[in-house]
């Protein structure tokens, strides 16, 4: 089936589209993942006894942006993504332990410290951006654009504009 390998992202993407439709029809739920991160971290801070409930964020949207919303559909969806990816990678023998992303290591070397630096700074920027924009590639990108929201088209384009700009900065112009 090697000759059909090019079709894989389209077939999987099409099935993911049908899955979205089924989820909306059956459970009334659109895909989204990024809100689970502020929920998880506020749940964690609360669990270790740090009280941040004075922040306006904890009252926003009836408190649904914090760990108080757990357990909810999206949390289980996110856990499910990990479970599904794990099962599929085991079933197809594509599970692979990796200490650093190969493309990154080729450009920056085996520097774990630098990778951690990129990851923390990048992760903060990404999540602040996602929550500001009101979604990530699943919430805005897939669900929001499927609903034809102007906000989602704009956010998705901006994700790529920022990403292409930064990738150019990190990796330079394409050499090949």
């Amino acid at each position, binding site marked *: 089936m090697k000759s059909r390998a090019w079709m894989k992202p389209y077939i999987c993407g099409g099935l993911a589209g049908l899955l979205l439709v089924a989820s909306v029809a059956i*459970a009334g*739920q659109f895909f989204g993942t990024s809100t689970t991160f502020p929920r998880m*971290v506020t749940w964690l801070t609360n669990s270790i006894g740090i009280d941040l409930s004075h922040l306006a964020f*904890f009252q926003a949207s009836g408190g649904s942006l914090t760990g108080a919303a757990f357990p909810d559909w999206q949390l289980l969806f996110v856990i*499910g993504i990990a479970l599904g990816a794990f099962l599929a990678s085991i079933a197809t023998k594509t599970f692979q332990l990796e200490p650093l992303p190969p493309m990154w290591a080729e450009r920056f070397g085996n520097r774990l410290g630098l990778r951690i630096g990129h990851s*923390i700074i990048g*992760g903060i920027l*990404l999540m602040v951006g996602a929550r500001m924009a009101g979604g990530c590639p699943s919430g805005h990108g897939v669900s929001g654009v499927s609903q034809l929201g102007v906000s989602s088209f704009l956010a998705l384009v901006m994700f790529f504009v920022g990403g292409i700009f930064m990738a150019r900065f990190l990796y330079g112009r394409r050499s090949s």
Partner: protein
Amino acid sequence: MTTLAFGLITGILFGALLQQAEVLRYEKQVGAMRLMDMTIVKFMLTTIVVGSIGIFLLKDLGLVSFDPRPLSLGLQIIGGLLFGVGWALIGYCPGTSLGALAEGRYHVIWPILGMLIGGLVFAFLYPMVQEHIQPMGNYGPISVADMLGVNHWFVILALAVGAGFLFRFFEKHNL
């Protein structure tokens, strides 16, 4: 309880599809931003086209109702650009990060940690964002069909045709 079960099942299926399409990999995500490998764009656009046809069918049949997410030029432009810069740095988005961890790419624990810290940072920035950035170009939940004053099926058709041309371009150039 049923809602939670549906969440888990939907997630498992979505995770398996993401894994099989290989979109959980740093190389595919940054590869798209470096304009070298458009796998994630193919996956995403196909999902969007199929998804939009399905959910608008459901809507036209009166089975579901939804409104697009509200438009604020400030939030989506500034937030979107911040997201993009961070995305290129870590090479994962929130949904794919956990899937990547599950297929063995354990270096993704650092981006996940960064995103969790980012969630906390946002909790502190929230009042400032709401007060100063949200009101910039605030148009509410408006769809492309509303904006252009055309039927939503026209927009979906244009989206599908546009995606088709893009796919042909990608395949022709081996992207």
